[in-house]
């Protein structure tokens, strides 16, 4: 299971890094969102993987590690705030400049890279 979990996290990271390396704002925001999923999964797994051991006192004999869960919970909410901020920033830039390219327009003219 651990192998599968690690491969999944790795795949998520790779896909999100690829998206972040794009030249337009929307895929980058999607990439950032996905990267935050990957990071959350990674951080969550520092408490190690456990099945059927809820972090509720008195419900089961042993319990999964509650600390990473608490930290990741706030991380999810903050991640949402960041996603929201960056997507609105992208909309604002589109409104101001008329383009959703993230690079210097002079540079884009020279190289034409997306």
């Amino acid at each position, binding site marked *: 299971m651990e192998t599968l979990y690690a491969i999944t996290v790795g795949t998520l990271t790779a896909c999100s890094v690829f998206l972040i390396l794009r030249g337009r704002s929307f895929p980058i925001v999607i990439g950032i969102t996905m990267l935050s999923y990957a990071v959350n999964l990674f951080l*969550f797994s520092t408490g190690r993987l456990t099945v059927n051991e809820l972090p509720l006192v008195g419900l089961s004999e042993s319990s999964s590690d509650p600390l990473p869960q608490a930290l990741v919970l706030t991380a999810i909410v903050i991640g949402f705030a960041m996603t929201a901020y960056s997507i609105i920033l992208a909309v*604002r830039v589109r409104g101001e400049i008329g383009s959703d390219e993230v690079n210097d327009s002079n540079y884009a003219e020279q190289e034409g890279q997306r």
Partner: protein
Amino acid sequence: MNLAAIVFLPFIGAVIPLLLAGRARLHITLATAAVTVLSLALLVVEAPVALAGDTTLYFAEWLPTLGLHIAFRLDGLALLFAGLILIIGLLVIIYAHYYLSQKDSAPRFFSCLLLFMGSMLGIVTADNLILMWFFWELTSVSSFLLIGYWFHQSTARRGARMALAITGAGGLALLAGILLIGSIVGSYQLDAVFAAADTIREHELYLPILILVLLGAFTKSAQFPFQFWLPHAMAAPTPVSAYLHSATMVKAGIFLMARLLPVLGGTPEWFTIVTLTGLATLLFGAYFALLKTDLKGLLAFSTISHLGLITMLLGLGSAGAVVAALFHIINHATFKAGLFMIAGIIDHETGSRDMRKLSGLRKAMPFTMVLAVITSAAMAGIPFFNGFLSKEMFFAEAYQQDLFGALSWFVPVLATLGAMLSVAYSVRFVHDVFFQEPPHDLPKKPHEPPLMMRFPVIVFAVLCIGVGVAPMLLAADILTPAVSAVTLSETTLDIAIWHGFNMPLLMSALALVGGIVIYVGRSELLTFSRQFDPHDAKEIFAKILSATTRFCDDMMQRIENGSLQRYIALLLVFTLVLVVPELAAVRQLTGDRPQLPIDAISLVGAVILMLAALATAMLHRQRLTSLMMLSVVGLVVSLSFIHFSAPDLAMTQLVVEVVSIILMILALFFMPQRIPRASSGRRVARDVLLAGSIGGIVGTLNYALITRPFESISDFFLANSVPGGGGTNVVNVILVDFRGFDTLGEITVLAIAAAGIHKLLNNLRPFMPSSDVDGRPWHRVKHPLMVQTVAQAILPLALMVSVYIFLRGHNLPGGGFIAGLVTAAAMILQYIANGVDWVKSRFDYNYQTLTSVGVMIALFTGVGSWFFDHNFLTSSFTYVHWPLVGKFELATAILFDLGVYLTVIGATLMILANFGQMTTRHRPRQEGY
């Protein structure tokens, strides 16, 4: 304490001239002089100990972990230099009072001068090498201000910049050298360094240390090939030049060599480098001094030459040479300060420093001429003047050394040659200016300066003769302890004017005759030198500087080319470079922790997750599809949280997922739906490679991490959750109780992000398409009836669920975050289904207020603990029995959670509702809405 006061008084006093800015010049001068006199008086009080050959120490800890202390020492060497700095400084202040014109700002001048004086005093009295370096750099900075005093002149600005660049760079080399010494000795205190002298000399790093320290000394003391900054520093006002060239700045390098002679000296490397540099500088300076037509230029090169002489003596390093070096420091300071002041007087009273224009001033300025003859005679080394004695000793040392084996003879020969040139330019200084036919077309009609302007020069001239006639009476007392401090041994001096007919006397005589011959035949020499291209050091320096700047610019251009993608790619590559070797060094990838078996559902989930992630990345040009794939990813992530025993996370992730996908669909309305062109193949290949590597690294790290056993601090939370926090849901208790302060920070960040978004939306004119990407118009029914009805029916249910989740959160999965998100999602659904107008007419509440109220409730819950003498955010709880409901827990933590709940609702709706209004008449239009 007095020692520290001597150094710090000028620094404190530097404020006084600025405070007196509105007053008469005389007051400012007197105040500045008073500060100097006070410092000097303290020095005199402390002097007897140093004169007796002992050392006074002052020690106060500053940064003990760095080995840096405020430590001062007053031994013979420090006393000699401090005395020169203060006495000559005082005379320079008097002179400057008359020299500066009414247009010049006296407060600024005297303030900088005092700063400079304090820095120099710090160098010579510091007992800690780092502290000394600190003052060393301060002299670079304050001399920059002094040289650039007339900042309206470009020569002054350039001269100041050059001096700062050269001496500052040398200072950095010196720091490196000092740090190396400190790493060997383990302390920067001078006594410890002296004690470890043998260790340092035998250390393998000795040569680097020597070169670094000498770089510092040579740049400061204008030794060949770093001499070029000194003539350009001539752009400074003459009092500054007189001070810089006699007792301070350039003498700092000499001082450093004398101070570290017992540590670094006595080795073949020291002999070779220091002696040859000194000799080269001596000849170079003397030759160019003869060619200069500017009075101050002549004196500047003669300073270089005399510094070379002193450096060479320190290079020889024998007891006799040290005596000669220190003696010449005093003598040079007296006659050179005097000569610079005479040059300033001539400039001041005739309006010119050009020796081609100046001539025959003996009629107009007879008194100044006498002073010039005396000081020049001392510079030339004529008998019965102080310069003669030290030059004689220099000849003796040059004659006696045998450092270069069979070739040792060239040292005394070249020394005599240097002395000849020195005589020649001294004669020239007097003869060209004061003799020959009377001057014509000078800017001003020459006349004698005021008496007080001549006074400092008279003092110097008297000293030149006095020391020259009675050296043992006037100089021996201060010289003896100084020599002892350098040689670290008892010394008795015997300076006599007459040694009988010997080699040094012959060399002196040769120098005198040769010098006059050179002067008489100087026109030949000038013709000879004219056939060489005049290499202006300023141009070469500017060329080197601009080449360096251009190189750096090119490098910058190459790295910073405006492509954000490239920056990220470079960062990622750099990360790989750092992480890959570390991971490669890990021998065992799989840890010892027993692993869970893979079940079929997990496998299916993981495959879906990976496929969806890949699809998101690959279909990113079809944005809506890509977004749908992303929502699949988020959904499966929340399922995996459920699977791995994290119900709170799963619920949060689920609702956040819904809200952010809605937000992004909304944003997509304002963004281009498709991307016209694909990336070039090369770029895709690069990105795939990079992303794959990073993903592989992260996956490997994660695998290595989760297969290893671990110790967690969570046992504390598990054990104390019920007795300490009164809740069985440990995750929630951590959030609102144990780590409540963190949560307060999180919701504040959330509120700030929402406020930032609110601001971003102000006055925004988004791009609004009238049709979809294929040109089809939007559907005319904006709010379908089915959706409307269902959404309205869901709202009360959703609100009830969210209240339930909120209340049970302390004991079962749930809590403020999740409840808030559920409420927000239900509200968003109303906006989608019914439109902004519908919601506004029923629920017109300001979300900004809601957010602020939420944060404040959380904050005041924390503050409330203070009223019960508890720490911030301490929670208390009790159980009450309600009829019908049963046993129920009341905790202050639930109040805190209420704050979280309201903040999450407020912030989420602030983001989404405000954004959703963009297409309606409720769009925020002006600032402050």
